[in-house]
């Protein structure tokens, strides 16, 4: 299937919630939450990016990863789930 990419990112970073908020604010993202497993995994979203697009948004990914606190950022792929 044609892949789709959303405006949600998984961001792995050093530091705590405060640092995550600062990284998000600095990059124009919203830090939605910390994931309760793994280390320093956060869920970011950006309202300026289309909700679903066929091409990755490399610019915002690199922009995030330029921040020294950010280890890496992964744009979330969109897929379908159905109610049964």
């Amino acid at each position: 299937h044609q892949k789709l990419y959303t405006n949600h990112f998984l961001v792995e970073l050093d530091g705590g919630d405060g640092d995550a908020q600062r990284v998000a604010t600095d990059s124009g993202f919203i830090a939605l939450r910390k994931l309760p497993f793994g280390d320093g995994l956060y869920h970011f979203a950006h309202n300026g990016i289309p909700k679903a697009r066929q091409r990755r948004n490399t610019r915002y990914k690199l922009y995030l990863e330029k921040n020294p606190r950010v280890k890496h950022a992964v744009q979330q792929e969109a897929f379908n789930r159905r109610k049964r």
Partner: protein
Amino acid sequence: GYRSIREIGIMMNDPLFTKQWYLVNTGQADGTPGLDLNVAEAWELGYTGKGVTIAIMDDGIDYLHPDLAENYNAEASYDFSSNDPYPYPRYTDDWFNSHGTRCAGEVSAAANNNICGVGVAYSSRVAGIRMLDQPFMTDIIEASSISHMPQIIDIYSASWGPTDDGKTVDGPRELTLQAMADGVNKGRNGKGSIYVWASGDGGSYDDCNCDGYASSMWTISINSAINDGRTALYDESCSSTLASTFSNGRKRNPEAGVATTDLYGNCTLRHSGTSAAAPEAAGVFALALEANPTLTWRDMQHLTVLTSKRNQLHDEVHKWRRNGVGLEFNHLFGYGVLDAGGMVKMARDWKTVPERFHCVGGSVQEPQAISSDNKMVLKISTDACEGKDNFVRYLEHVQAVVTMNSTRRGDLNANLTSPMGTKSILLSRRPRDDDSKVGFDKWPFMTTHTWGEDPRGTWILEVGFVGGTEQKGVLKEWTLMLHGTQSAPYIDQRVSDYQSKLAMSKKEELEEELDEAVERSLKSLLRKN
């Protein structure tokens, strides 16, 4: 194992209670009396789900519904579709977002309040996790839902999955797998979160082993029967299904549907699809957890295998069979219909099962051609890591991790036969699947049918094509993964019913342990002489 209908003295004033045949089946809508979840026995013993929280991962919950509000656990609820703590369903003209509210009613609808019906675990608490109602699903939303408050939420119920169109092969992505692993290892303060999955709505065109959520070892995959024991028309079948509960699914009779709560304070008799299977099972597991809060995620699967009953379930396509240690199973119903009474009685005295080990039984890495002329047969002889620390002597789950491609994926058919002679259908034909590019890439086909067996010996994998046209394929890799215990899981369990599967399994284990002990002593004597 049947009970007389007259023994059941459960009377509730909830108007839909008498129509909830999956709770107490007295033959409503041409159903089969006695074919139900046997919750009456559990309730009579005092188990109604007190202290247990079940999360419904779905499109939200009408937590203002008078039949749900009392048991609603707001603290454990969240809305990952809109990122706020209020998982109230979004209104649509066709009430499209009623799914979660209907599932919640089957688990936790309050009893004796003269509203709608009664939940299987009517004193349990229900949390809403709204995570299906956004334009697209993402790995991070699934992972966040599956790992939400694992120290408060005991059971996660899911009645959704990849599209059941008979041509999809899909499952949890990386983050969600990590979340599940974290849940079963650390959830419930180390006892493990319990994930319950409805196996699928794809009917005979699909195979739920192609659904990575349902076929995961970490989820209890539940199928559904209708009120007279037949299969629902939308039932899929696969070897990873562990047990069954009930849903509508074949009859026009409105009372043969599943009665539960509906949006905006309403009730419904027509909750359709296999989605009701998971919350009903979650309710039964909640009763067992109340009886024994120390049960681990694996204990729950063992109890499911040991207490589920064939009862009066019948499947025209797949016959009921017995595995190598005498446990009766069916390719669609698993080990049978859940028996809440039997489960809580066994749960009360249950001692947690021994440590679980994982062994790579063997692997075939050379490419093997698959043709339409005859089946390709591969054999792996394994000692199940005997003599090593990770020796697996008593099986729980078995996975055949397979990489294969073909000119038409849907015509592929795969069977796995264990050393003790139990044949599992790993993959059935899926006539709508015309994939010729993606195939299966390290896909973990799982079977629960060899539960309790001794894995040592030769495993046989047969792969072929079924269907009229000539096809070609290649199997690139097969790795046999064995998961189970080193010591006998039932030998220390207390048996109260000598007709039960537990009694039979315990006797089998005692005999085998005795044989092996005698064998060991003979060998040491011979060595000395």
